[in-house]
């Protein structure tokens, strides 16, 4: 007595009810979804660079849709970072010694190797919460707060977004404002900009005073973001969004753990000094995204151009192409390309003979670089309506020489090594 015609009964009934009700075949656009009390999105992510940093991050996000269509969301993020990252100094043909951020210990870097500071070990906890409230038929307001805390860093933020639907919801205008206050309390204190990094001597009783004199206290910065957006439905399959964003950072933008090598005409390091960045940064970003519904899948392409008064211009192309393998599973290749120009104060090292600039950083992340990501995601819906997905990606950063000479011993050394990372992620939605 089993009904075995899988999937066919609903289809046959659809035809039979059309005959019964004297209607033309019904369009299969029934669209209903449950507002379960709560929906949960969880994910764990592993990010690992070859020989450098690795990051384990877990996210749990809970969303409640209320009967008036307002939405409450709370999100908790926990991550743990370990490993080494480039401290900004150039490699040398001889062993180099660097002070640890605490100032009380040192580490050595082998000849020819990019200097990496292996001290990094940090745990970050972030909580963010938001409330979206629809009102007056075509308006939505969202207010959010977020707090994040790590060993040497604390961040507090508030944000608001106002959205207005026009033309039967075919156009949506949005305007948002976000204010973020960050305070940093560097390990061992904030170094004096462009001062020498002192190497603690083996004679440990001399450390207390001499090792600390160039470092003191903590600092902070504020970030104000303005965001204006237009979302437009183009046709039954296509949707487009355009955003303009203005971001103004004011305060301590320097990385207290990054240094520069001071070299002589032969490229030999004479001194190591702490970096210094301007205390304001104003950025404009233009973001365009298009989504296109395929017969069984979705194409999603976005492009971002950003320009700022540090002279960093960047272009980002991000695309995801979802192919539905069945009603309940899909694969999604991901490709991302990123390219940035160098900040005007970026230099891979400081020449001993040249006057000391006011601002300098050898952090490759503000230098010229290209980066790409390729990845694949597979997702599946279970019988109970839960969904899971796995994602594997490869991310490579290729820092570029923005036109600097490599004198003497530096000529044969790699000042711009690529950074290669893998990203693995597992998602579960219920």
């Amino acid at each position, binding site marked *: 007595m089993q009904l075995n015609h899988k999937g066919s009964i609903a289809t046959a009934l659809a035809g039979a009810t059309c005959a019964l009700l004297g209607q033309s075949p019904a*369009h299969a*656009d029934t669209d209903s979804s449950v507002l379960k009390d709560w929906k949960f*999105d969880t994910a764990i992510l592993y990010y690992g660079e070859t020989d450098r940093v690795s990051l384990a*991050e877990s*996210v749990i*996000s809970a969303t409640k849709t209320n009967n008036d269509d307002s939405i409450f969301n709370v999100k908790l*993020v926990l991550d743990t970072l370990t490993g080494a990252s480039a401290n900004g100094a150039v490699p040398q043909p001889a062993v180099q010694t660097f002070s640890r951020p605490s100032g009380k210990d040192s580490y050595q870097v082998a000849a020819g190797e990019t200097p990496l500071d292996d001290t990094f070990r*940090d745990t970050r906890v972030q909580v963010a919460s938001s409330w979206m409230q629809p009102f007056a038929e075509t308006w939505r307001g969202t207010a959010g707060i*977020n707090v*994040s805390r790590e060993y*040497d860093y604390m*961040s507090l*933020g508030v944000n608001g977004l106002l959205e207005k639907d026009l033309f*039967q*919801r*075919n156009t949506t205008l949005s305007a*948002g404002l*976000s204010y*973020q206050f*960050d305070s*940093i309390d560097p390990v061992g204190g904030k170094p004096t900009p462009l001062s020498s990094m002192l190497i603690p001597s083996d004679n440990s009783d001399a450390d207390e005073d001499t090792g600390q004199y160039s470092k003191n206290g903590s600092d902070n910065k504020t*970030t104000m*973001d303005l*965001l204006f957006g237009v*979302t437009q*439905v*183009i*046709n*039954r*399959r296509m*949707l487009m*969004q355009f*955003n303009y*964003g203005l*971001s103004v950072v004011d305060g301590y933008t320097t*990385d207290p753990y990054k240094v520069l090598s001071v070299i002589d005409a032969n490229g030999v390091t004479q001194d190591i000094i702490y970096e210094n960045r301007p205390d304001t940064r104003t*950025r404009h*970003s233009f*973001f365009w*995204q298009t*989504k296109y*519904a395929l017969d069984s899948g*979705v194409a999603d392409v*976005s492009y*971002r151009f*950003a320009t700022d008064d*540090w002279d*960093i211009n*960047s272009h*980002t192309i991000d695309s995801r192409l*979802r192919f539905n393998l069945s009603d309940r599973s899909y694969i999604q290749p991901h490709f991302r390309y*990123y390219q940035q120009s160098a900040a005007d104060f970026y230099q891979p090292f400081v020449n001993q003979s040249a006057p000391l600039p006011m601002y300098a950083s050898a952090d490759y*992340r503000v230098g010229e*670089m290209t*980066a790409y990501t390729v990845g694949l995601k597979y997702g599946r819906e279970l019988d109970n309506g839960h969904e899971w997905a796995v*994602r594997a990606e490869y*991310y490579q*950063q290729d820092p570029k020489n923005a036109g600097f000479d490599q004198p003497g011993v530096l000529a044969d050394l790699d000042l711009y090594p690529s950074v290669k990372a893998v990203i693995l*992620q597992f*998602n579960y939605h219920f």
Partner: protein
Amino acid sequence: MKRKALYVSVLIALSQLGGCASLGVQPWERDLLAKDEMELGAEGIDLGLDDHIYFSKEATSGGRSFAGGGCGCN
């Protein structure tokens, strides 16, 4: 010559834009747009994690949403 070709194609693109005065769809044509995967912020968890990675490894952040701060990684 090349410039002229570009100029012509831009003109054509503009006139096509003007031609479809009725951008958008009627409410009953939203069957495809209504799918979860067609939401602009679909896969929000992935986008959030990506933002965190690229925020800490590159000099540009935001665009899609607020650039923000909130992380001592850059």
